[in-house]
């Protein structure tokens, strides 16, 4: 018998963790970044809808999901609590667009900075980034399957991409 999967929604500035066969969904990523961390061995993963690159020093725990650095740490800690080894965890990211390219300051938009920061953190803790679909000037919605580790990315003007 095939187990029924539950769809779990992740709002902006939040993250959620789940396991097989459930699906994590986050919608309407513009400059924000959707980041998944996945342990294939255990079939568990987390998805965050990140708004900003780096947190300030004294950020309250309830605001951890807003920032790339604190969100990655928080998901990682929860996956480890459920028995994950860091060496088994892989990452994917989507989003980080510039919805209104004329509003960019100093040539670099917050979307681009979000992506760079997330990539930098993953590299520094040696978590491989095995898929990404970022940039552009359009929004993305993301479905992450804890069955396959696939991230299904949907946009209005560019159809569906699977990474």
């Amino acid at each position: 018998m095939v187990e029924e999967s539950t769809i779990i929604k992740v709002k902006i500035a939040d993250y959620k963790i789940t396991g097989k066969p459930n699906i994590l969904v986050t919608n309407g990523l513009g400059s924000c970044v959707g980041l998944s961390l996945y342990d294939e061995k255990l079939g568990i993963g987390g998805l965050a809808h990140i708004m900003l690159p780096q947190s300030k020093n004294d950020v309250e725990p309830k605001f951890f999901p807003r920032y790339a650095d604190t969100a990655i740490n928080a998901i990682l800690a929860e996956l480890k609590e459920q028995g994950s080894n860091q060496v088994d965890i892989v990452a994917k990211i989507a989003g980080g667009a510039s919805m209104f390219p004329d509003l960019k300051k100093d040539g670099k938009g917050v979307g681009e900075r979000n992506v760079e920061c997330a990539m930098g953190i993953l590299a520094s803790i040696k978590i491989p980034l095995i898929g990404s679909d970022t940039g552009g000037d359009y929004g993305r919605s993301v479905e992450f399957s804890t069955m396959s580790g696939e991230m299904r990315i949907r946009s209005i003007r560019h159809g569906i991409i699977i990474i």
Partner: protein
Amino acid sequence: MVFSGLKSSQLDALMEISNVGVGNAATALSQMLNTSVEIRVPSIKLLEISDVPEHLGGDDKAVLGMFLKMLGDASGNMLFIYPIESAERMVSLLLQQDLKGEELFSELALSALKEVGNILASAYLSALGTMLSINLICSTPSISYDMAGAIIDYTLIELCSSEDKALVVETEFFLRGNEVKGNFFLIPDPGTLEVILAAAGQGK
């Protein structure tokens, strides 16, 4: 944390100011299109940042969104959201020809929509500025046909570095009965609220 400390008399004052502003904007639009324009009395809500996309009609919903900055003595973001059918009809009204689908994204159609946004926002700010004796102007509009969540997230990102919540002034407007409908949102910057409230005699 500025927003959470607002008193109800201050919210009433903000509502009154917004009401005059949207009234002025409705008159401007009605004159421009030579048609009747109805506007709902604005509402003011203090929302969790994570609930704002849902409030704008759904984070995943495809809409035509236009974004302008409020500048001058007070600052903030203004946003117009049209369901796509309404945007099509609005363009048809403006250009006196039927446009559908991809045609809506022609330079001409987009600049016509931007012009409407510009006129509405300017009329709104001009009424606010006159009433409060402060100087308010708007930036040129940026436009995008995309998911509502993706259109608003830039505004929320700016806000969330200093605030937990977003103060959202919202009104809905209708042209020719129900033929065209759109929503207008003003999301003031936190520091700006004090300027507006002080000018309205509602300072701390």
